[in-house]
């Protein structure tokens, strides 16, 4: 029984208050003296008017129309939707972290600076890099920052290298970030193994190559075994190697980008280091670099001096700032707490279990769904619904059918190089029973595709709304409520 949820603007009535503020405790001056009429707002501010209780009911009802990792299995490929430990939430809201101003004098924030210093030490060890900046606030911004560092490196050698090479399997943010930092994108095809085509790469490499952006394991969940050759080839032409760290959850303790020849790395703390995805953020895309790129890092960096920790602004070659202040400190606090509890053995076991869970699930699902690369995968694998498509059932339909089983579907239609892609990443925080239940659901859907395809293409049936018309949402664009739209 589907019930529409009213919008905030269709509720409440004039005069209701959701919050109480103190009276003014200073002698008040006439408004005209402080803010002349000509600078004053004319149009009414018609925000909703509701009591606290009504607002809480509204958002409680909205929350029950939403699925999170705590609601059920969330195998969204490439997003590493692992469980978010609750202690991290409690630590991040401590006034000693949440109520610090970024411009406070270093001597008043020694605890925060020490946390950043220790977090950097840990992430350096996990990645094999030499220095870390916490300023980039998401993976995409980490890519932008990394490419800016690469640009500064080449420009310091007065080389204006124009091209950034990116595998066709890379995440959309890679080419977008390259474009945003003024580079020309050269797409490198994958070979039959689903890995970077070494020949094609070598052909594309040249004096104009600024960098190769690589995700390892790649977005097919396969380790780029030729990495050492690739690194050598790129460095040979004077290019640099960029590591998209979104898939680091597959190799912690097993392999480090720093040892694979990468010059600059971004990590997604909201993926690998278990900070919550927040409905689409906030995340943190910290960037690690090898020695040669350190001079160009955004300022300031955290240093440990005799009188304690301090922000070092004395970086003459720094590219400056990519964020108003010091990045998403609140997210780093959660990731640091996670690292403290996992330790070296724990992080390695997390990767081992993530890879084990992925291979276990792949083994079961490949009975009913095409698997382009049928060999052990890393932390994720990509199925193809090409067989199902023959019955008129696309990957997207399979995803919608999964909603009725209480599972969040895998990523669909990415990577683009797999037709009707279904990218599955279970992560290490799922139990064997959950993997089995998910496999049973996928097997039942595969059976339905054969016996009653319409049942699948009509899904979902149990969600708060039926299948939504995405085309109409573009054609009849409505991106805000307006009184007329009543």
């Amino acid at each position: 029984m589907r019930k529409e949820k009213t919008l905030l603007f269709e509720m409440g009535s004039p005069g209701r208050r959701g919050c109480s503020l103190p009276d003014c405790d200073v002698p008040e001056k006439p408004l005209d003296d402080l803010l002349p009429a000509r600078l004053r707002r004319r149009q009414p501010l018609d925000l909703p008017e509701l009591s606290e209780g009504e607002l809480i009911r509204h958002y409680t009802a909205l929350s029950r129309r939403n699925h999170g990792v705590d609601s059920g299995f969330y195998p969204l490929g490439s997003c590493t939707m692992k469980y978010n430990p609750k202690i991290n939430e409690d630590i991040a809201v401590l006034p000693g972290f949440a109520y610090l101003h970024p411009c406070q004098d270093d001597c008043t924030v020694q605890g925060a600076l020490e946390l950043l210093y220790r977090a950097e030490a840990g992430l350096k060890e996990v990645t094999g890099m030499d220095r870390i900046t916490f300023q980039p606030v998401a993976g995409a911004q980490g890519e932008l920052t990394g490419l800016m560092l690469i640009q500064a490196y080449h420009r310091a050698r007065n080389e204006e290298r124009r091209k950034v090479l990116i595998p066709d399997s890379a995440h959309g943010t890679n080419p977008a970030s390259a474009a945003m930092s003024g580079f020309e994108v050269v797409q490198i095809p994958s070979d039959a193994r689903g890995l970077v085509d070494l020949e094609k790469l070598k052909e594309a490499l040249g004096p104009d190559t600024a960098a190769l952006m690589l995700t390892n394991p790649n977005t097919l969940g396969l380790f780029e075994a030729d990495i050492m050759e690739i690194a050598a080839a790129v460095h040979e032409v004077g290019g640099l190697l960029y590591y998209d760290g979104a898939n680091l959850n597959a190799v912690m303790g097993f392999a480090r980008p720093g040892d694979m020849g990468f010059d600059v790395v971004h990590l997604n703390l909201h993926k690998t280091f278990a900070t919550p995805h927040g409905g689409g953020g906030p995340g943190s895309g910290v960037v690690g670099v090898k020695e040669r790129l350190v001079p160009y890092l955004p300022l300031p960096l955290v240093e440990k001096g005799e009188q304690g920790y301090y922000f070092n602004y004395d970086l003459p070659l720094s590219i400056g700032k990519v964020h108003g202040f010091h990045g998403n400190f609140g997210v780093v606090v959660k990731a640091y707490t996670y690292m403290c509890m996992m330790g070296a053995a724990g992080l390695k076991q997390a990767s081992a279990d993530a890879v084990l869970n992925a291979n276990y699930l792949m083994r079961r699902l490949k009975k009913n769904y095409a698997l382009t690369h049928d060999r052990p995968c890393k932390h994720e694998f990509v199925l193809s619904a090409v067989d199902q498509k023959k019955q008129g059932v696309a990957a997207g339909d399979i995803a919608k059918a999964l909603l009725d089983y209480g599972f969040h579907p895998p990523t669909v239609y990415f990577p683009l190089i797999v037709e009707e892609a279904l990218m599955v990443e279970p992560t290490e925080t799922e139990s064997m029973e959950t993997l089995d239940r998910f496999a049973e659901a996928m097997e039942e859907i595969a059976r339905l595709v054969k016996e009653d395809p319409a049942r699948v293409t009509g899904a979902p049936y149990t969600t708060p709304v039926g299948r939504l018309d995405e085309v109409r949402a573009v054609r009849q664009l409505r991106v805000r409520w307006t009184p007329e739209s009543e």
Partner: protein
Amino acid sequence: MSGRHFLPLTDAERSAMLKRIGADSVDDLFLDVPAAVRFQGEMQLPPALSELEAAGHLHSLAARNKNLRDCASFLGAGVYDHFIPSMVRHVTGRSEFYTAYTPYQAEMSQGVLQAIFEYQTMICQLTGMEAANASLYDGATALAEGAVMACAVTGRSKVLVSRGVSPFYRAVLQNYFQARGLQTEELPCRDGQTDRDAVEKAVGGDVAALIQQRPNFFGLLEEMDGVADLLHKQGALLVLSVDPLSLPLVQAPAEYGTDIVTGEGQGMGNPPSFGGPLLGFFATREKYIRRMPGRIAGETVDHDGGRGFVLTLQTREQHIRRERATSNICSNQALNALAAAVYLAAMGPAGMREVALLCLQKAAYAREKIAALDGYRITFPGVYFKEFTVSLPEAARTLNRRLLSQNILGGFDLSKYYPELGEAALFCVTETRTRAEIDTLVQALEGWS
């Protein structure tokens, strides 16, 4: 081994699973990692802590910071100590919101999608603009993305930036622009306000936009009438960074022809958190919607005609347009936008007006008392909101050290970014500063030798 309570697989299950997939040990699954790259031994990390020990360690780190609840802070400059109603964190603390990811599967994400749609609506109501996105990283990157968008819309590659815009924002803009080979030209200030003659002289056929901040970094509300017309006549756009808490009282950006409105939304329901996570809000006119960076939620219907919400205009975004996307942004500041939406709905029109009035009156009260102190001067004449610049009788560093000893966080030291002002600091007074705290500040200022 600590952290085990986040790893449900037992040893028995690991071996059963390995058997099922025909591998002897986990290492068999890592044979594709070339030996030269295999990490040998254990990573050199501190010994793992139990939850009890980790809590102790983190509490001790937190306790070694002086936080805004332990003292009276007059620091602003882009991050503010505004009151946060308790209910905000009781909404963002619902796991269905904070453990979900981007609402790709709309039918299972109507909670996040409707919350984004309502957030977008309230940002439009606040700014007067016609379309807003789901959120960007912070005020600085939002302004930079607004400038990049202006270049894309006008097909031009230069923007004019007032020196009155935050130095942090200008640094990020500079960085974003020089990476893409776009140019920024800084316009000087006179008496703390953008030099209108300089603007008129600089605006030409090659200018994509004029970028200003209102209030500007000195706290002044600059006159804006006529600016937009001047720009539009030359085919250029007006791009602004605004303080959302001023908008219940101050002209909405749409009321003076602004094309792209950005700003820092941290002050609406989010703690300062040492400068992050913050909230970049972004709004524009109907005609530029398809050029807007970031995610956008839109309304539609399901097959029974029931209302629902989806991510719309996704073709502009990186996961589809890749290098031709309007922006590379993927994860944004969704939970901080949710906090801002709950804040705006809880405050309502009357509450937002009250907060703005409290800031206006308290800042004016502080300004008047400081101006009366000998040795101190309000650097610029003009209309202020909640921040103002004060010329000091001693270096801001020295003054602030003295204030700290009296449990006061003094104003932001302007000398490093605006040497032309000599010794000056930017003071901020919000609704959370009591009269007693302001009076204590004034007394402490008096005490300079």
